[in-house]
């Protein structure tokens, strides 16, 4: 990712892209053909593997955006800002898949598209928080301030999300919610057999590698557009 080789796509990235594609295909195969059919829930349980994998990667993406924000505030280097935006975008996509797959899982299992359980609500709040992050950036004209405000907001967001989770947990444990499925224990517990664990681990790996690949592509895109902007402004001055 050095600026002199910026124009050409690094070979390692191409390899990684191919690898991710293969891993995703393999994981999908495993989810549908290798993992056993779950006794109680049936076929729909297979969504679980996508749900957990994307959820995990999404959270890590957001967290790394916040960490990049902290680093940027300490040492204002544009590359941390480019990274942060990329991480947030990847995180948004993954978390969205997480929420939707959770919803798909919920429907046949508890006969509702939505449960107000802490994890699902917190995931949604997290999604909205980082959508707000993008909106904030879009409203700022000065690039340095845009990066600074983005960093601050992502840090604040990362702090309030766990607090949101706790507040809803408190809500649920004391007072079962009337809206929705009405079953506070509705987390769909099931015991996992060995093939299931293997499938889950592999899905996790596949989605993580895929996420890193997407992130790398996105960071390159961000960096390239920064360079274009720089040249454009320089040429205007001449």
């Amino acid at each position, binding site marked *: 990712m050095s600026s002199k080789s910026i124009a050409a796509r690094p070979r390692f990235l191409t390899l990684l892209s191919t690898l991710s594609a293969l891993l995703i295909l393999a994981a999908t195969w495993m989810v549908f053909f290798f993992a056993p059919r779950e006794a109680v829930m049936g076929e729909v349980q297979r969504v679980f593997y996508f749900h957990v994998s994307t959820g995990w990667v999404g959270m890590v993406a957001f967290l790394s955006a916040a960490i990049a924000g902290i680093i940027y505030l300490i040492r204002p280097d544009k590359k941390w800002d480019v990274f942060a935006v990329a991480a947030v975008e990847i995180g948004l996509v993954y978390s969205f898949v997480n929420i939707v797959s959770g919803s798909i899982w919920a429907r046949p299992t508890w006969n509702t598209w939505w449960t107000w359980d802490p994890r699902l609500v917190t995931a949604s709040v997290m999604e909205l928080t980082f959508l707000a992050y993008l909106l904030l950036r879009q409203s700022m004209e*000065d690039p340095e301030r845009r990066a600074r405000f983005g960093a601050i907001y992502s840090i604040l967001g990362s702090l309030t999300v766990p607090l949101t989770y706790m507040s809803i947990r408190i809500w649920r444990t004391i007072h079962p919610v009337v809206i929705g499925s009405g079953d506070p224990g509705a987390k769909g517990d099931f015991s996992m057999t060995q093939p299931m664990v293997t499938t889950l681990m592999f899905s996790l790996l596949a989605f993580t590698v895929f996420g890193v690949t997407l992130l790398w592509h996105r960071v390159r895109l961000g960096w390239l557009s920064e360079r274009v902007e*720089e040249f454009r*402004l320089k040429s205007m001055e001449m």
Partner: protein
Amino acid sequence: MISTRGLGKRYGYRWALQDVTLNVGPGEITALLGPNGAGKSTLLRILATLSKPTIGDCQMANFQLPQQAAAARAHLGFLAHQPLFYEDLSAEQNLAFYAHLYRIKRPSERIAGLLKNFDLYLRRHEPVRTFSRGMQQRLALARVLLHKPRVLLLDEPHSGLDLAGVVILDEVLRGLAKKRTTILFATHELERAQSLARKVVVLANGKLVAASTGKSVSPSSVYRRALRIANRKA
């Protein structure tokens, strides 16, 4: 005591100021001359600690900026384009608030004195909203002098003033210079620079184009040269 070396300020990819080196000593009135968009306000804002330079050194009243900016502020006064007042509050209330921020001792005496000096005492209880531009400028001047700053920065202070206001302003500035205050004011009007300042510094396109080093250099020729350079689009 204003001292900068290689000062530069960048917004995004655009350099608003480049390689500005200047020195102003105590008791000197220096004019910062330049066309609109030259970077005069940007430079003044950096000197006033409202903005941080991208590169370069800067010392105000013997304080190193930006590290000692907080300490420097007690000795700086900045008269900006905008009056910086709360329009719904009265002249007296505004000054009292700023007196508190600057921890002035015996504030009511000082405020009354300044209001009388600037011919605003009779309207001190009226909201600033009702003041004319000239009156607001006079009140702003009073505010800036509340804490008796060692260095005074003024951004186009004559704009909007009537003749009486200009006379009062020039008188005040000359009086302060005699008391060893360092004064730097920005203007795009040649006559202002010539009549008030002893030294002229010319800014164009973010760069210092010329500086007169003594009483002998004529600002007019320097300024004309600056305009030519600015128009050349180097």
